């Protein structure tokens, strides 16, 4: 069967360092919008680390949750797009076809995770910063919606390579930029269609939960919540 790409994020490992965010910027040609636009809440971070405080001093706790496109199986963003710019790919990704996007921003409204980012202006790189741009990824223009693609360019490259070498893809062979960079190895990427894969194993684990799972969007990102320490555990 076709691959079903998915991810597992262990929040007990995540320390909110933002490495994934920068990795994503570097890999996916995400432009910086600058102070003025950032103040208008137009900054684009395909992956963001949500931070929530709980309790009051001195009994304060902080919770980090990296939130990226959940690549839902029942994605609210897909049916609402009038031009099929947002659609379900054969490998279960929520595709975003930039050239087909006319900028209704309906998908962004429908997305409960608010992980879709809109190009309110044409992006700008002050030369020679543009030399860093990744030639494997489009540079999106004004009026186009964009979002996490699970680094589809890396997926495609590996698939093409595997085909050339006449072999199957190995589990863990494909690593989106965020997964690759994560200093605590909190993120795991793989094929949910393959029950043997690491990501499937984690998705099956008793700890696995989905973000806003109650909405029935059937996300393909599994979160393993922060554990607590029990003396007994190691005694």
């Amino acid at each position: 069967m076709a691959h079903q790409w998915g991810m597992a994020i262990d929040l007990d490992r995540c320390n909110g360092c933002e490495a994934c965010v920068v990795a994503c910027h570097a890999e996916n040609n995400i432009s910086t919008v600058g102070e003025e636009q950032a103040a208008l809440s137009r900054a684009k971070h395909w992956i963001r680390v949500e931070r929530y405080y709980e309790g009051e001093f001195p009994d304060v706790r902080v919770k980090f949750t990296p939130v990226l496109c959940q690549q839902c199986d029942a994605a609210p963003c897909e049916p609402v797009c009038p031009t099929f710019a947002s659609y379900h790919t054969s490998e279960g990704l929520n595709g975003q076809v930039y050239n087909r996007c006319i900028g209704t921003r309906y998908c962004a409204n429908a997305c409960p995770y608010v992980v879709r980012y809109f190009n309110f202006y044409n992006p700008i790189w002050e030369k020679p910063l543009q030399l860093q741009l990744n030639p494997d990824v489009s540079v999106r223009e004004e009026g186009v919606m964009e979002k996490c693609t699970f680094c589809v360019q890396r997926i495609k490259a590996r698939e093409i390579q595997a085909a050339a070498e006449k072999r199957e893809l190995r589990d863990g062979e494909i690593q989106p930029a965020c997964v690759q960079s994560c200093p605590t190895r909190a993120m795991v990427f793989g094929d949910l269609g393959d029950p043997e894969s690491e990501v499937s194993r984690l998705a099956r684990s008793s700890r696995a939960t989905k973000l806003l799972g109650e909405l029935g969007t059937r996300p393909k990102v599994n979160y393993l919540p922060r554990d607590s320490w029990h003396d007994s555990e190691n005694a």
Partner: protein
Amino acid sequence: MERRDFLKISAVAGATAALEGCGNPDHQLIRFVPEEDLIPGIATWKPSICTLCPAGCGLLVRVMAGEAEVVRNGQLGLLKMGLAKKLEGNPAHPINQGKLCPRGQAGLQVTYHPDRIKGPLVRTGRRGSGQFREVGWDEATKQLVQKLSELKASKQEGGLAFVTAPLRGQRKTIIDTFVASFKGLTSIEFAFFDDSVIRAANAASFGHALPPTVDIGTSNYVISFGADFLGTWNSPVAQSLGFGHMRKGRPGQRGKFVQFEQRISQTGASADEWIPVEPGAEGMLALSLAHVIIAENKQLATAAGHAGSLIEGWSLGLPDYAPEKVAAQVGVKPETIARIAREAAAQDPAVALIGDAAVAHTNGLFNALAVNALSALLGSVGKPGGILFASGSSAKPPAASLQSWASEVSSGATAVDVLLLYNANPVFAAPAEWGVQRALEKVPFIASFGSFIDETSALADLILPDHSPLESWLEDTPVSGSAKTVVSVAPPAMNPLHNTRAMADVLLDAAHQLGGDFAKTLPWKTYEEAIQASFAALYKEKGSKTAKDADEFWKKAQEQGGWWSTEPSQVAAVISAGTAVKNSAPQFSGDSSQYPYHFLPFASQLLYDGSLAHLPWMQEVPDPLSTAMWGTWVEINPRTAEKLMIQQGDLVEVVSPNGKLRAPALVSPGIAPDVIAMPVGQGHQNFTRYATGRGANPISILAPANVEGTGSLAWAATRVKLSRVGRGKLILFGGSLSESSPELKHR
């Protein structure tokens, strides 16, 4: 039917005027003959080294063909060349094992920064006016050599000063040799967040003048006193890898992590238990924990060995540190202290570490020694899951302190004719009280090797821009992060974009032009040669299983990004008998009645010490806790804010005995009511288009207090008062602070 046919039908006629030059060579830049033979669209991965912080992580650079606008012999044109496209961790490297922190990944933007200095500059306007003239390397080097030879002729003591960031390896050797030949002091190493207190403490306690390599991964109980070890402290990537392993790397076994500090750091945010402690009381707290462990016979006092013997009253079981006795001063409940002590004692291995603000109080050294003693008592020193020491090269702590040098020069006690600057920005990163700027103004000739105009290099008379790290030969000998001996090396990942030269090459060139005994002391023609020589020596010393001779050893090292031992290195501790120290209470400048709040600067997860404030990525990526972008903030406890009638985003004025600054307020539950925290990094007066004039610099208002027994700055020893002065500009990426919306509270 074709899309554009459809359009032509509905098209406005005649709207398509011909565009000049499209598809016609006459209207385009000339193209230079490529120097490299590249296949477009195919990436190659080259090893490199991250130089943005002292951790020294190994990099893999993704290089692809691209077209760059370059100037070659005075003409602008396009050149097809290999361009770095992405930085990732080098999986083979023992320190970061393929992983990389956000700062490291932004290194790309250093190379491609629009405001990089594109060639040698000579000052034309008055000093600091920022008016420079571009010159060729020959002229620039000539000027440098001339100044130096004049100095040599004058035979005057210490006429040459060289201020650098902490360096390691051959660059340090070259600089020190160079400076020494001028009968000067050794180079002056300066960084705001330096590790000299910890080095001093470790030298005393364990006989290793090195920062610790904390093996968190296999530890079962980690107590951190103020160290932001998952964010910026010591070797964050290595420590993060360990943290992940401790938490979930060992099925059925999950270590506990306790953090003591005044403000929830990014590290504290990940702790199983976060416990606020009074500023500067960390040492006392550590000893109180030790007291419980000894008193309850979980461990014998003698188990702490030499490290314990350095603490007064240790052998007696630290009678003065009973939890109930110190609780008030420490600000932690006695029962909590006792519980943590019992938990830690019950876990093996358990480790305690200290860093950042905890050692930046006047009693920082005592705090460090106390925590070292606790680690020793927990029996985790030199064992897996505990504190290890890598065989760092530069074990000797830096000789001269910038502070004393600056005061001598500005007072005229020392006359300096030539000052060389490399990777250090003391005008920004040292307290105004040190008078670095005044000192620099007294120096007749300043040359900077920096790649950017910053507050310090703006004062230079001559600028000899270094390559960016990716364009340059690199070597490093990390002193922490791996128990193995690590010697990293990397050839340039790409050709230089601009007319730049490696600092070491320029220095060697100058040395040869100066002649004299340099021929002997600095025998190498280039930096590359120097590194190769060091590897030849390394091969002689260590040998190799895989390489048959020094050349192959050298080649292999370049391919994999360095050489590292297969086994943890065993370095003999050099223990020197020390006298027992007694608890010393932290001193704070500014009396508590007039300045009611402790001022706590902290390293920014993204801007580090401000040296990365010029990278747009680092400016726009939200800070992990505040989610602030493109600016700075003053962190205030809600109760304090209420008392002072300060609202989120209000502009507040922070006043210390040594100065004042203004920044927007961020009301956060994660900070003690009597503490005001502020990230270091913003507030540059002159540091590229992205950082200049943005926010305020907390360093500027710090008191020049020192950590007792060391030369380094006690940057957490300042008190402040604050007041609301108006509306500020606070740009946050995050909306609500908490998951349960404030609106819901109405119910």
